[in-house]
Every structure is written in C-alpha cells, then in structure tokens.
C-alpha cells in the first residue's frame, strides 16, 4: 500500500519535472523494476514453473543484504512454526542408513529433473554441513552437525528429557524459518522437498545414538 503511494508520488514528481532522469528513480521504484525484470526474464521449463518466482512473505523480506525489521522476523518465524506438521504417531526417528543416503544426495527440483516427487529428491545436507566425519567432501555454509545428538546429550530419543531437542530438530527440518526467519536452509517438509518418512531418516542420522554421527 505504502509502496504504491510512493510510486504514485514519484511518478507525479517526474511528470511535473518533465524529465525522467534516472537519478530520480526511488529505491521503491527500483524494487518494482527488479520484479518486472524477473517476470520478463523467466519462462517455465519442465517441472520449474513460473510460480517459483512468486515470493511469499519470508522470501520477499529476506531478499536484501539487510535483515527485515524485528516485527517481520517475528511474523515469519511464528508462521513457520505454525506450519510444522508433527510426525504421525509421534514417531520421530527412522533409519540413519537411509538418512545418510539422503544427506549425500544433492539432487532434485531443477528443471532437468523429471519429477518434483519427494522420491526423486535428496536432502542436500553435505552440500552445506559437515555430518559424518568419514565424509570429507562437505560444505561450510551451515554449521557442522558432527556429534549432533551426542553434543546435545541425547542418549535415548524416547526419554522425555530428549523431547525438546528432538522436537526442535524436527521443526528445523520441516520449516527452518521457524527459528531463523532468513535461514539459508530449505524448508524440507513445508516446501514438500522431503516426505515425512525421509525426514524421519535424516532425524535418525542426526539423533540416533547408533548413528555414525554420534560416535
């Protein structure tokens, strides 16, 4: 609303001044022009449709070198936490071996992938995180997750004392923005990148005391 007023006001200035010099382009106008450039530039290809450049609240607010205002951060995080679907039957952990395979797999969701089905997707973890120490090819965009469960004192995932960290980890994987509005991490559950079972398997890789991550 406010932005529209700004544009109208700026346009009026341009018209009265009678010369549309670029030095008079306002930041809000540049924002609009940049959006228009995106709409002009992209075409759909395979599974990558044009809805992918329609931004939601968080994507829009986090498209700047500066963080959004506190009130917006709180709104994004509250919405994200509310979006979390908790695991059916309260079963949080699957098989860490499957989790490791998913963590290694960086595929899925590009215009060269045949389907957006979760079965075709990896969890992308090693792209950005250290996890099992045996894997030396890991990225550094996210923090190291080596000894993730052990460092947090998880000896038995069914112990009520472990519940807060187990639930936090589930929510982080389902919708990373619940705890950090502009997190670089994808929203694996919320964006339908991984199924509930796939998230269980990644959970096991991180939290199962038997997982190599926690040795």
């Amino acid at each position, binding site marked *: 609303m406010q932005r529209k007023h700004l544009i109208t006001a700026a346009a009026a200035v341009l018209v009265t001044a009678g010369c549309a010099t670029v030095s008079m382009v306002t930041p809000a106008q*540049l924002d609009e022009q*940049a959006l228009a450039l995106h709409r002009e530039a992209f075409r759909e290809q395979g599974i*990558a449709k044009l809805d992918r450049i329609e931004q939601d609240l968080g994507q829009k607010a986090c498209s700047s070198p500066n963080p959004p205002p506190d009130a917006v951060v709180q709104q994004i995080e509250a919405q994200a936490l509310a979006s979390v679907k908790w695991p059916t039957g309260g079963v949080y952990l699957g098989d860490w071996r499957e989790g490791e395979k998913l963590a290694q797999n960086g595929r899925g969701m590009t*215009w060269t992938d045949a389907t957006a089905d979760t079965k075709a997707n990896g969890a992308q973890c090693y792209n*950005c995180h250290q996890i099992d120490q045996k894997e030396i*090819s890991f990225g550094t965009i996210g923090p190291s997750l080596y000894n993730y469960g052990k460092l947090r004192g998880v000896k038995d995932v069914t112990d009520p004392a472990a519940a807060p960290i187990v639930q936090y980890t589930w929510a982080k994987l389902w919708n990373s923005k619940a705890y950090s509005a502009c997190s670089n991490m994808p929203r694996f559950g919320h964006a339908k990148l991984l199924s509930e079972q796939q998230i269980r398997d990644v959970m096991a890789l991180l939290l199962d005391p038997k997982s190599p991550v926690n040795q």
Partner: protein
Amino acid sequence: MKFIPLLAATAALLACGAVVSQTKTASDGIAEYRKMLEDGNPAELFEAKGEDLWKTARGPKKASLQACNLGLGPGVVKGAFVQLPRWFADTGRVQDLESRLLTCMETLQGFNAAEIAKTGFDKGEQATLTALSAWISSESRGMKMALPQAHAEERRFYELGKRAFFFRGGPMDFSCASCHGEDGKRIRLQDLPNLTKNPGDGLGFAAWPAYRVSSGEMWSMQRRLNDCYRQQRFPYPGYASDLTIALGVYMGVNAQGAQSIAPALKR
C-alpha cells in the same frame, strides 16, 4: 575425444590428492592441474575458432563482424571485454558481451537475434557466440575489470542487478547470495567466491567464459548464469535477458580492479 585424457588426468590428480592429504582441497587439485596445463587450456581451441568467426563473412548479408562496436569503437576488441556490460547509445540499452554480439550478428550479418537467443546452448549460432566470447575475452586477458558507471542506465542496472542477486525464490528459497554472499564458504569442496565485493583476481566474474573440465564444455557467462539459476531451482532465464545483464553489471562493477583470466579453466 581429445578431452578425455584431460578429464582422466584431473580425476587421477584429485584422487591422488585425497590419498596424500585429506586436508588438501579440490581447489588445490584444480590449481595444480591448471599449472600442469599452463599453456594448454582447451579454451584455446575455442579462441582460435572465435577469431576465425569474427573475421569470416557470414550470414544472409555475408559480412564479417569486424565493424562490430563492442564499446571501444568499431572493430576494437582488445580491452573491450573488461568494460562490459555497458551502455550502448545505438541500441539504447545496457548490454553484456553476448547481447552485444547478438546485435552485431543481426545488424551486420543479417541473422535473427531473437531466434539465436531461443536456441539451446552449443547448438547452431549459439556455438558461434561461445567461440566469439572465448576469443574476445582472451583479448583482454590480464587486464583489470573496469566497467563504466558514468551513464545513468549503467548505475540503474547495477541497482537492479543487486536486487536480482539477493532475490529469494523457488522451492529451496535460494538467491545468488545464499552461496555467494559471504567469504570463505564452500559447497562440498568447491570454494565459493563472495560476489558482493571484489573476490580477487581471476575469481567469479573475472574468470568467465571458462572451459569446464567436468563437462568438457566451453561455457560463456550467460551459460554460467543459466546453470546457477538451474541449481537455484528457478525457472529458465532468457538468454541475454535484461535480468542476466543486470546481474553482470552488479558482479562486474563489484569486481572492479580484479584481473581477468578469462577464458579460465574450471572444475
């Protein structure tokens, strides 16, 4: 066929590197590989082809590109690359190397620029553009990036490019800045240049076009950006679209003073 031994050499070198020392990164391996090749970058084959294509009478008008103005005057190639993208008065647009070449191919040679822009990479006249880009960039090798920002449109495109760089979208919420917004980050073992500032000589914008060892292909800057968007899980960006040109202005101006090594040799 020729490049298979090169690929094997890299693989062997990288494998060997991993055995010798686990702390040695893939980029060290690539740096060593580059040193081994030194005067043997396969990009040279594309440079030679590009120079021929520039000088050969082609297209419906059977003309060469020797009268093409890349910003420093008709036919001036040396030094043109490190000042692109820039404003062109004749088209009234900010253009990068490849969109400018499309203009010249249309006006001088009679090709249909829109048709070429729609053609897939490496096919038809797109292969011509790749070779031309390789040669033209090589004519500025060792020079410092020096994009002009005197024209208001060049400054506006910088601002638009900055917004494009930070634009988050797609199913994974990625922007260019997700990977290229901080110093010292990696995806797996691949070092990521911070493109919000000058990442240093021969890094980021000052390295493309480049010959990619992993795919055995010569990639122009437009193709590099195209694959970045693919990995961002975005839809398909138009070739030489204003969005991609604006990104070039943003990265190129940020890299001001960085020495160009294009066409470089890449993983």
